[in-house]
């Protein structure tokens, strides 16, 4: 018998749906646990410019890096995957800096003390700057962190990667823009 939809029935239905959805998500989480995240999106658009001040007080703008391949990594101190990828970023930056590649870390949705603690912990040697109003993140269309953009010598974003980068993929993507 299909009765009328009373508020009570509706609420019961919503409860069942909610529980089912939660369980599905948890099962999926458990199943996918071992699979590494792979998510790189090829794009082709002019990289939005930015002008920030690094944590060390130095000016940092995209305009000043014109003609050089740039890796822009958005991070925050509370983000666990950002901690996972931090050593890989530093290592690949050390390997590729001689080829003129520039790495830029942009810290979003964070507090300064926490961000500084993060920098003390991982000691990245490439410039890192806070984006306190989130303007750069909005310009780049960042939806979650970590998110990394690969900008070629012409200043075009040719790839965007969402999620923590492994050293291997990072190296391959840097190769692409350093050509």
């Amino acid at each position, binding site marked *: 018998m299909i009765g009328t939809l009373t508020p009570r029935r509706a609420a019961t239905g919503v409860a069942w749906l909610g529980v089912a959805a939660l369980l599905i998500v948890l099962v999926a989480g458990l199943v996918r646990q071992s699979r590494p995240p792979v998510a790189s999106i090829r794009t082709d658009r002019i990289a939005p410019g930015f002008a920030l001040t690094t944590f060390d007080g130095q000016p940092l703008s995209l305009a000043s890096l014109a003609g050089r391949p740039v890796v822009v990594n958005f991070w925050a101190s509370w*983000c666990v995957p950002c901690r996972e990828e931090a050593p890989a970023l530093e290592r690949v930056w050390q390997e590729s800096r001689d080829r003129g590649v520039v790495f830029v870390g942009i810290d979003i949705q964070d507090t300064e003390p926490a961000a500084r603690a993060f920098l003390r912990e991982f000691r990245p040697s490439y410039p890192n700057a806070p984006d306190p109003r989130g303007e750069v993140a909005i310009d780049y269309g960042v939806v979650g962190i970590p998110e990394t953009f690969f900008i070629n010598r012409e200043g075009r974003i040719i790839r965007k990667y969402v999620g923590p980068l492994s050293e291997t993929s990072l190296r391959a993507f840097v190769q692409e823009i350093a050509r």
Partner: protein
Amino acid sequence: MADLGIIALLAALVLSAYGAVAAVVGHRRGIAGLRLSSQRAVWATAALVTLAVAALVYAFATRDFSIRYVAERSSRSMSLPLTIAAFYSGQAGSLLYWAWTLALFTAVVIWRGRHRLPNLVPYVTATLLGIQAFLLFILGFVTTPFEQLPFTPADGLGLNPLLNDGGMLLHPPLLLAGYASWSIPFAFAMAALLTGRLDGEWVRATRRYALIAWMILGLGNLVGAWWAYHVLGWGGYWGWDPVENASFLPWLTGTAYLHSVMIQERRGMLKIWNLALIILTFNLAIFGTFIVRSGVISSVHAFSQSAVGPYYLGFLAFTLLSALGLLTYRLPRLRAENQIDSFLSREAFFLLNNVVFLGIAFATLWGSIYPLISEVVSGVKVTVGPPYYNQVNGPLFVVLIALMGIAPLTPWRRASRARLVASFAGPATLALVVAVGGVVAGLQKPPALVGVAVCAFVVGTIVMEFARGVRTRWRAGCDLLGATVGLVRANPRRYGGYLIHLGVVLIALAVVGSRFYQTERDVTLAPGEELRIGPYQVTFLGLSEEVVPGQRIVVAPLAVREGGRYLGEVSAEKAYHRNYENQPSTRVGLLSGPRDDLYVVLTGWDETGRAGFVVFVNPLVMWLWIGGALLLAGALVAVAPAAWEQHVPAARRVAGVVRSVG
């Protein structure tokens, strides 16, 4: 010892499974012997699980490293209390501890209820023993603490350095017992649903148990915050980490339940809601354990991934679906006896409080499982962090605290506007005065001002309530102290509740102070060099090194002065633990005071004797712990029996009143 432990666990598993079936069959068929037998199974399970715990503790205390679990978590150099605490430091041991507290709680509850609640007890027994059987199955067959090594190592690995701390003696046992204790109200709710005895009986039977569970879980969370504050060395006490959230979630829904249940007792409303809240709270406790143990969400609580994930998820699915199924089945019989008469009534405000609590719980759950959702939807794990929680939950908490002032002073059923204005004129004025005073004193951040004003409002309402009650008794001839004690004893639940509210206000003030007015400096100091931070002058006195068994500690003492007055010495330390040399643990140099805490973390040093520090001034943090103590005191008052509940002959009680009046 290992054999004894495993035999005890397996015997307990068989007995609890038997007891669960016997309780229900005995009740349905009316076989008194079988019912009695099921109760004996409860006592026997409790005894056997206690025996298993004793066997494991004994193995730790006697350093029996032939047991893998003991060898991996303790070493000869550890102190005895910590060695014994190491028993719940890992997965198998913490599950054993969970099972043990559950077994003890079950025994107490069944013992107390066996004559008074003959119809509910069989189903309560069955539910609790069912949960117990699940845990014992995991302990017996999936992850057992009694696995033996093929050889006996000379010494164990020792405890993870982060756990090597006094907090280990309190935080895990309280939190795990808090999780386990919500099984009791859940079992009563299930019994009510199974038997169809859906009136107030189960609610009255579980009132104190729910309050105690709430208290233990709340304390577990607070001690966790305190622990994080003094060992993690990032200057904070709460980071919205998924595992912290997992232990906060059942507390939120449990708190909502403690409030909404009053409406059911008083007005016969919200029956479905209360059942749903209890089901939710228990399942969130299971969910919390699942999150911690399965590794589906990465967290600073770096527990290794393990095989228990799928079992836990299966159990969660089973309890959630069967409880929801029962609730749906009983819906036709869960009719409210009353309607909400007016939006200006205590019921309405309590309901709003519940909606806000669930809002916070949902936002927190959503944030915690967002990595999973985003992975399912878009294939990418994306995490959200403190900014999300602060933005979403911050304003909700302000609303919640405001309601804490409003709801208790609003009459049931219907309040007249005039009466509300009369009740709240005083506290609202106080809030306004505090806000203006705050602006004058230099508080410029709007959220902080709002927070402080709302807290002042609540304090105003609580003081007014106490003053009113005490004055009445005082006029009747009691002295001031006698009047206060008498007031609380007459209605401990109400006044215990006010004490808890006062504790929450203190916690809120501490959060506002430390979140909006924290100062941080990152410095390198040579011996004898001074740092000025906030009101303090801090002088670094030079590094030294201490060696204690199992640890090498680098000590940096600092002398603290305020305006030239010497306040004392703090010592910021890094400890290197044997077998864990690459994970030094931080010991914060802490000078705590009612105005603020000076919080010094040693970060590094060089061969010239210069040392790096991060120094924080954290305003008001001490009030967080004082508020926590008040929370505990209030909860203890609220579970105490009211004067009229005690078995005093009526004549003597009347005589007592007469004497106090005369």
